[in-house]
């Protein structure tokens, strides 16, 4: 164990790789769950009663599905979607295999957060848009999203941080990442130093993400 650091059982290289793995998993799953969650969140807003695309059917089907997915613990979801993961990734273990359940976990979460953000947008703005003769699509991307953007940024910050936490559990399918190191070495092998360093690394990642999110959101709000 030539390159050990501060008496840890892991090498600096291992730590760095784990860092990279975590960011990779978070980034890829964020992109996909965002691509799924954002439209679903918008749909949840505009199909509700009294909104621009009021539709009982879509709303009443979508709403419980999101609730159900959100109530399944991640570790169970991880196992439950294995057949699907095999179909998509070709394997049920490893980093890419972890991304599938991460998306299943984060997409409904993002949908709900997006819904909350966009519901904050003043109804009067939508009314003004309708009075101008805006199409549904125009109302969404010219009014709803710009007005909710600052809040949406915070939403995605929260979702990203949630994903960092979930990737730690993804170690269960051999996905690697900082969380996995913390569990495998720090927790299971009683390597206190590794535990401290990896947890500190996670704290730093989360802090950085939150600060960036806050900064960008404030920048957009200009207040």
């Amino acid at each position, binding site marked *: 164990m030539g390159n050990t650091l501060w008496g840890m059982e892991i090498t600096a290289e291992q730590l760095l790789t784990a860092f990279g793995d975590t960011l990779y998993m978070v980034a890829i799953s964020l992109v996909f769950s965002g691509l799924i969650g954002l439209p679903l969140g918008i749909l949840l807003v505009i199909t509700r009663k009294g909104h621009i695309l009021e539709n009982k059917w879509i709303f009443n089907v979508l709403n419980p599905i999101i609730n159900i997915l959100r109530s399944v613990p991640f570790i169970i979801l991880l196992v439950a979607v294995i057949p699907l993961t095999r179909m998509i990734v070709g394997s049920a273990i490893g980093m890419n295999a972890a991304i599938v359940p991460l998306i299943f976990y984060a997409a409904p979460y993002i949908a709900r957060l997006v819904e909350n953000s966009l519901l904050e947008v003043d109804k*009067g703005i939508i*009314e*003004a848009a309708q*009075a101008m*003769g*805006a199409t549904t699509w125009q109302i969404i991307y010219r*009014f709803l999203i710009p*007005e909710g*953007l600052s809040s949406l940024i915070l939403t995605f910050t929260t979702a990203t941080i949630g994903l960092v936490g979930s990737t730690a559990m993804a170690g269960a399918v051999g996905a690697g990442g900082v969380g996995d190191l913390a569990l495998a070495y720090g927790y299971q092998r009683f390597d206190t130093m590794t535990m401290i360093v990896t947890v500190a690394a996670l704290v730093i990642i989360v802090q950085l993400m939150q600060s960036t999110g806050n900064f960008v959101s404030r920048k957009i709000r200009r207040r």
Partner: protein
Amino acid sequence: MIEFQGVKKIYETKKQTVEALKGIDLKVEKGDIFGVVGYSGAGKSTLIRLVNLLEHPSDGSVIVGGKDLTKLSPKELRAEKKKIGMIFQHFNLLNSKTVFDNIAMPLVLSGTPAKEIQKRVGELLEFVGLSSKAKSYPDQLSGGQKQRIGIARALATNPSILLCDEATSALDPQTTSAVLQLLKKINEEYNITILLITHEMSVIREICNKVAVMEGGCVVEQGSVFEVFAKPQTDIAKNFVRTVIHDEIPQSFLKSIGSHIPIIWKINFIGTTSGTPLLSTISKKYDVHLSVLSANISEIQETPFGNLIIEVTGNKNEVDKAYQYIKDEGILVQEVQV
């Protein structure tokens, strides 16, 4: 220009049905500044939203510019809406966009070329007197400025109708007056028909030429502003008129009466007659004494409109003759019982 024909609006919830409008017949002519006044819950807000179909009528039809909007395709409807501008009580500007971008929005929506937008928004900013604020954000502006931006935005697509939804209710009296003058200017310079709703009779007095009074989902009284101010028929109209024209007998006078019963006349002057020196003529001609309890002259539609409450003392014969004289002069006079 805008015609309501037997319009009903019913809101249905699981527990109850609410009839917000109970059969409205109303006609707004081209060039009018038509005011609808009523307390909150009277249905005026629903009424104005029917014009650009923010609300759909449950029954009856709303004809705008000769077309029944409910019969149009979504595309045709969007095109029609661009001919109807609307401003709101809470302005409803996009806080995430600059003043320029807010005004440009209706033009952007209809795919106007950037150069044209630049020019048109420049004109509009100048018209509302806020050229220097193009790069500001709405939250950096005062209420009055925000409403001017709202007006500029509503005018961007050169509409022929402007709907004002309690447009001055969130503003202080001075700003209200300035915004109302701007609306009047729009009406005169661009010949834009204005339909406004308000709970303030002073707004009606200041700029409208026609008025409808609403109560409980019905139009209970309508006519020229002058008619309604001079001779309100319903109690609610009288109440509204009283909010801007004070023709009450002062309380202090009522308290000082004691046992004798005074003769009190209420005199209304309309137009040119308010120029005649009525009181001095009477007191010279007849042996009566007059004391003014309350006097008030306001201008409605650029016509002076005065009312006067006087106490008359003298022997009955002379008093009666004086009363007859005023009547013969064609001035509205009535005796008030205390």
